[in-house]
């Protein structure tokens, strides 16, 4: 196989020709490190664009595995990933490595939250939002403001999406747009309301464009961009910093400082509950497989273990998280977790 590693001019010639970027801009991209939090429809499209564009180092954090319903819009995944039940971060890493072998890829199967986000962002130049929930975005906002790292919010639902670049020194920030989080379970999601397949791709392309601008040393576009491609409506909305913003004005990082609010979390209307271990842990999937084999059917692909018994279906990750499928009641999910994982 030919070695593409040093072919900067050939691979990135279309970028190098652009007055907006040029070879110098491309070199800046190549020496940049980004974190993508969440690798669903937004995150996978961002990762693909950023890897092809030659962002030198990508860290991808995601808590989920590839499901058939993801293939309608999540660009990097295919039916083999569903059959293998690959974690999204790992499935993404494998595809991206084939797209661009000259960049550094770091796939982490974890639930980004207040207890680990600072570790994930410690050495990056910029954070891209590929999450599917409000809670994680408030945590990203706090962490990025605290560490002085720019981040690009992108959100979709139905046939609409929003994009906003958040520059920690200048503001406004995510909490200037959404001062308080919605009550848990009270916010429409793609799972409950649906999402048009093209909207995440569009929003991800705009987020990545903002990221490339910042990484190359250009100025991001201020305000919030609202897109509604079904109506073909695109608007930039002026957004000012709120004088009393707790995050970017008062520098109170409420969501980062509170730690994990709950160990059991309903995932996005998917009839699935995630239970997190009380302390950071590492599960020996092979040993667990032997233990659980007596109680039901177990399979293990090295990244996650799937267990089926008469009353439940559990997916166990190496970081100790468990997804309880087909259950929306938190206490039932906790009870099944206790029964089979003994915690």
């Amino acid at each position, binding site marked *: 196989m030919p070695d593409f590693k040093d072919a900067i001019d050939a691979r990135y010639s279309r970028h190098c020709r652009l007055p907006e970027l040029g070879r110098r801009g491309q070199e800046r991209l190549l020496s940049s490190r980004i974190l993508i939090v969440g690798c669903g429809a937004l995150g996978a499209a961002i990762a693909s664009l950023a890897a092809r564009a030659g962002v030198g180092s990508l860290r991808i954090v995601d808590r989920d595995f590839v499901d058939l319903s993801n293939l309608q819009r999540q660009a990097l995944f295919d039916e083999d990933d569903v059959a293998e039940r690959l974690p999204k971060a790992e499935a993404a890493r494998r595809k991206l490595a084939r797209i661009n072998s000259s960049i550094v890829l770091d796939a982490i199967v974890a639930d980004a939250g207040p207890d680990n986000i600072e570790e994930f962002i410690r050495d990056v130049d910029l954070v891209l939002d590929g999450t599917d929930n409000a809670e994680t975005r408030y945590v990203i906002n706090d962490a990025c403001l605290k560490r002085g790292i720019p981040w690009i919010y992108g*959100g*979709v639902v*139905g046939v609409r999406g929003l994009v906003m670049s958040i520059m920690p020194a200048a503001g406004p920030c995510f909490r200037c747009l959404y001062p308080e989080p919605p009550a848990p379970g009270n916010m429409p999601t793609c799972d409950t*309301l649906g999402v048009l397949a093209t909207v995440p791709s569009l929003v991800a392309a705009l987020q990545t464009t903002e990221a490339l601008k910042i990484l190359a040393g250009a100025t991001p576009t201020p305000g919030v961009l609202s897109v509604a491609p079904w109506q073909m409506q695109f608007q930039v909305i002026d957004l000012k910093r*709120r004088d009393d913003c707790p995050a970017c004005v008062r520098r109170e990082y409420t969501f980062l400082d509170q730690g994990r609010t709950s160990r059991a979390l309903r995932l996005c209307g998917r009839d699935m509950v995630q239970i997190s271990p009380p302390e950071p842990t590492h599960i020996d999937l092979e040993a667990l497989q032997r233990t659980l084999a007596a109680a039901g059917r177990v399979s293990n692909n090295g990244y996650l273990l799937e267990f089926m018994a008469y009353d439940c279906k559990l997916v166990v990750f190496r970081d100790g998280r468990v997804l309880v499928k087909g259950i929306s009641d938190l206490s039932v999910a906790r009870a099944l977790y206790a029964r089979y994982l003994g915690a």
Partner: protein
Amino acid sequence: MKIRINNREQELSDQASLIDVVRLVRSTTADDPMLKAIRQRTGDDHISYLVNGKVVAPQEYETTPVKEGDEVRWIHPAFGG
């Protein structure tokens, strides 16, 4: 008085506050399929309202006056990915 709501000029009474704008938006978006679905499922439309670029908290809608020439924008929620 005249104000602009999402780039469209609207006539409101001189004593209007933001809550009047909110009511107007609710009535004009009553048939919007997505907002309708959100309202049905959650009892609220979770729209953010900005007056001259600043987001106003829902508890301040009634006490936030709007005046001639104000620019009010509303943004639908987008927390999916």
